[in-house]
């Protein structure tokens, strides 16, 4: 641990997430930095231990010959070693490159080759195998560190492999021989130094590495956790958060690593993405960020379980939720704050159903809830607001370090992504309607892609986000991705994501992709949610075997038709979905249909399901009934 004297002799004095962790370890060495569940227990890591491990690994990286500017890749689920390796890399001036644990070998080779990573920290045999499979094509990759030894130790003889514990031992030896080496390296860090490459998920083309500098990250930290940040009072060491989204994505990096270092919030790692509901119940976070998919899933779970509840519970529950709906409407009108009337209703609903519901959802103690990374439907947010959990939609992208706009507590307007951060300039391009941002958080460019960088950031420093939106008294409403805007054969501009989200509100629908560019009318490919539809089919006594079989049932087709009709009723005739087909399989990252962040790759889908799409336009009748094949 660093003493005060050592801290004072630091060189440039640039604040980085690493110095923040060092200072926390100095001030509150025994405070809880993070918890991970092992053998049924949430075992904690103190700030002192966190910092100690960072120092060890940083020394080990120096010993491995990692110098300023070298890239260190990490492919792992969220765990403390991810954070330790990340910070150790930044400490020695390296650049962290995160890979999704779901990345298939083809993408792994692209990212590793493009970034030229020298060291890879792989979580386990599964991740290690992906890299080893393609390591012949990666001359720069010299060291592979694995964290879980199962299946590797004693079986793999590759000279480049090193077990995590051995890495720590190597670091300790180096630390004893060269005390202060890491501190020296840290002291040379400049604000303009690149500290991480974040590969954008790339719904089109190969992923590009966005370079984020120390200054970018500090700018975002200041914007989100500062006085005018996400919540008031700001997050602190008494708050808890759950870490479960991929850490290589900028959003989770902010909410886990950087927020943790900046505010001291206690990070709790979920066991896996599948155990998020249980882990939420255990942790009861005070600070919870989720992607729309999770919010939709939480809502769908409640609806399914409620439908299966005994009549008394169902009726009392419905009564409570009806009150909650009124609370939500009142709060929505008041910017997400309670009114006197909504407080009374909330108190009644609280006793009837809301308290237990929030406890079971794991939202009992939530102080700030956020949604981002994809568009979310207003209905879902309204429902959670009814439970007294105002969800703040935030907006940002990798290229502006995820800080552009956010709904502020008490000034929420559903359907918008809120107001621009104080440090961010935001305007709408008058001709194209594209959202442009400028500020300290704008990235330093794409790695090795000056052409793409020039496309994204213009000469005046405005970042072209690629999103189309409008400003409504200072609040930004996003229409859609620029390239997704469709022009039907009739010449009408249609933003598909709004329609898609309206369909996805239903717990029965998992995916919806609206098609209609240069087509006579809109059509949709819809993927059903196997859990809820399966549950529904069981209750309706409809026999089915597989997912595909389920999608082919006439009853299921009728069910989806009903949902689509409901959505159509609220839309202009041009925006209505005239016909649809159910996708015969669940979309998957491995098959290239989804990006690593579970966003649909429209081009891949159009290619793969070409005949299915064509069948919607070739069939004789384009009315709703025609959808049943």
């Amino acid at each position, binding site marked *: 641990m660093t003493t005060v004297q050592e801290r004072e002799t630091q060189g440039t004095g640039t604040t980085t997430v690493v110095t923040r962790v060092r200072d926390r370890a100095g001030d509150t060495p025994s405070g809880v930095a993070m918890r991970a569940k092992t053998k049924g227990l949430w075992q904690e890591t103190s700030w002192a231990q966190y910092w100690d491990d960072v120092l060890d690994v940083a020394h080990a990286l120096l010993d491995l010959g990692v110098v300023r500017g070298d890239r260190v890749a990490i492919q792992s689920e969220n765990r403390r070693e991810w954070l330790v390796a990340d910070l150790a890399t930044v400490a020695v001036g390296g650049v962290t490159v995160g890979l999704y644990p779901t990345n298939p070998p083809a993408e792994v080779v692209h990212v590793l080759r493009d970034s030229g990573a020298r060291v890879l920290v792989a979580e386990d045999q599964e991740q290690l195998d992906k890299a080893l499979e393609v390591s012949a094509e990666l001359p720069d990759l010299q060291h592979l560190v694995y964290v879980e030894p199962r299946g590797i130790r004693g079986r793999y003889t590759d000279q480049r492999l090193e077990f995590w514990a051995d890495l720590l031992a190597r670091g300790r030896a180096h630390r004893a021989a060269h005390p202060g080496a890491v501190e020296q390296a840290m002291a040379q860090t400049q604000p303009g130094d690149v500290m991480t490459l974040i590969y954008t998920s790339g719904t089109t083309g190969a992923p590009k590495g966005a370079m984020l500098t120390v200054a970018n990250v500090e700018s975002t930290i200041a914007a989100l956790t500062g006085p005018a940040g996400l919540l008031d009072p700001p997050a602190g060491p008494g708050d808890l958060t759950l870490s479960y989204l991929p850490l290589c994505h900028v959003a989770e990096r902010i909410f886990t690593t950087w927020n943790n270092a900046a505010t001291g919030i206690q990070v709790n790692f979920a066991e896996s993405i599948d155990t998020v509901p249980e882990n939420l119940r255990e942790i009861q976070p005070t600070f919870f960020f989720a992607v729309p998919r999770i919010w939709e899933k939480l809502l769908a779970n409640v609806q399914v379980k409620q439908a299966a509840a005994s009549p008394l519970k169902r009726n009392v529950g419905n009564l409570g939720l009806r009150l909650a709906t009124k609370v939500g409407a009142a709060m929505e009108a008041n910017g997400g704050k309670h009114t006197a009337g909504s407080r009374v209703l909330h108190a009644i609903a609280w006793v009837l159903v809301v308290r*237990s519901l929030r406890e079971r959802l794991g939202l009992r103690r939530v102080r700030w809830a956020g949604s981002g990374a994809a568009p979310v439907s207003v209905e879902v947010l309204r429902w959670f607001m009814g439970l007294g959990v105002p969800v703040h939609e935030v907006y940002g992208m990798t290229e502006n370090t995820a800080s552009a706009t956010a709904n502020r507590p008490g000034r929420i307007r559903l359907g918008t992504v809120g107001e621009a951060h104080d440090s961010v300039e935001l305007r709408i391009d008058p001709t194209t309607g594209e959202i442009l941002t400028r500020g300290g958080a704008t990235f330093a460019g794409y790695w090795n892609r000056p052409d793409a960088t020039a496309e994204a950031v213009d000469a005046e420093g405005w970042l072209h986000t690629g999103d189309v939106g409008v400003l409504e008294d200072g609040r930004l409403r996003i229409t859609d991705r620029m390239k997704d805007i469709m022009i039907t054969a009739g010449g009408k501009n249609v933003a598909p994501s709004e329609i898609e989200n309206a369909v996805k509100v239903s717990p029965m629908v998992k995916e919806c992709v609206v098609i209609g560019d240069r087509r006579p009318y809109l059509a949709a490919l819809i993927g059903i949610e196997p859990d809820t539809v399966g549950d529904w089919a069981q209750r309706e006594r409809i026999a089915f075997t597989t997912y595909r079989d389920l999608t082919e049932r006439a009853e299921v087709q009728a069910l989806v038709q009903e949902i689509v009709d409901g959505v159509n009723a609220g839309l202009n005739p041009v925006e209505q979905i005239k016909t649809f087909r159910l996708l015969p399989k669940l979309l998957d990252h491995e098959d290239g249909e989804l990006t690593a962040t579970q966003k649909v790759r429209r081009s891949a889908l159009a290619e793969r399901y070409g005949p299915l799409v064509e069948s919607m336009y070739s069939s004789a009748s384009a009315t709703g009934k025609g959808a049943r094949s």
Partner: protein
Amino acid sequence: MTAVRESADPSSVPEAKGRRPWGRPQLYTAYGQDMALLNTGAKKVSVGVLLVVALLLPFLLEDDLLRLLATGSVLAIGAIGLNLVTGYAGQVSLGHAFFLGVGAYTAAVVSGDPEDDQVWGLGITFLPVWLLAGGLVAALVGLVIAPLASRLRGLYLAIVTLGLVFLGTHVFNEWDAVTGGIGVGRPAADPVLFGVDLSRRTEAFSADQQLYLLMTVLLVAFALLGRNIARSAIGRSFAAVRDRDIAAEVTGVDVRKVKRRAFVISGFYAGCAGALLYSITGYLDPSSFGLLVSVQFVAMVLIGGVSTISGSILGAFFIALLPRLTRELPEYLPFLSSSATQTPNVFQVETLLYGLLIVAFLLLEPRGLFGLWVRIRNYWKAWPFSY
């Protein structure tokens, strides 16, 4: 993760273990939290409230009810003992009445008047002494019986322990020097604590108030002890033997030792309960330790809830208060007589009820009153869903 921890430098192990953020009952940072005596906030509150109510009752209730509740407390101690051997360790015992008798007579002898030339007496009236003596002698008998249990199981064990009751009845009937003989009997142990005979009224309290408080305190102590036995390694080895003794042996549990322990502990509880039970009435008759008493205890365990301490207490109070309810029956059902000489009478109804209740509970709610409580609790726990 674990592997890393194990190989990591010992100095890097976090110094403070088991810190748990406030208001998160399902977040466990140490196994001890899961196994804690009062592992939820609701339990802490309800046990606290229950204790306060129990201490206030003597000032609110009539003396005859207090006496009944004191008897219930003592029966509960006995029922916990039977539940430990039958419920937790799975060794069916119908011989509980015999252990009860052994304890009662031991205590009576220790506390008895040495001047009395009819029966033996040592004249040590100090309650802890005769209580412990009664418990220990019964535990010793349990130790002697235990080898039978390690050779027999199930029905055979039940029959053998049933035999104990008949042996006991015979001995008690014939051994006049200890028991006073049939129809004569002898005075029971005197509950004297620091020179105060609690079975006689004092200036501040009536005899029943004192006995009630004494028995309540003892029940709390014995229940706490029982609960701690149940949640410790001993209790878990009991459960292992109950669920599958061969598997238990494979996992390293010494089955014979566990069965011996179960009988010794159960004997101790029964002995203490026997000693205390008759100090309430002040008199004991050798015919009081028949099969019916054993059946009553089995009923307490089954009605209350197998393998639960709180269930044993519930069951004991249920059985203790049942006669009080059946005595009220003739008022509503005129054909029932309250006299033992006429048929049908309330005593027959009572006996009938024991049997019927056992059958009904085994069929409808094998987990007993405690199981009913668990159902209620789970109903509300799952609110607003059904699962």
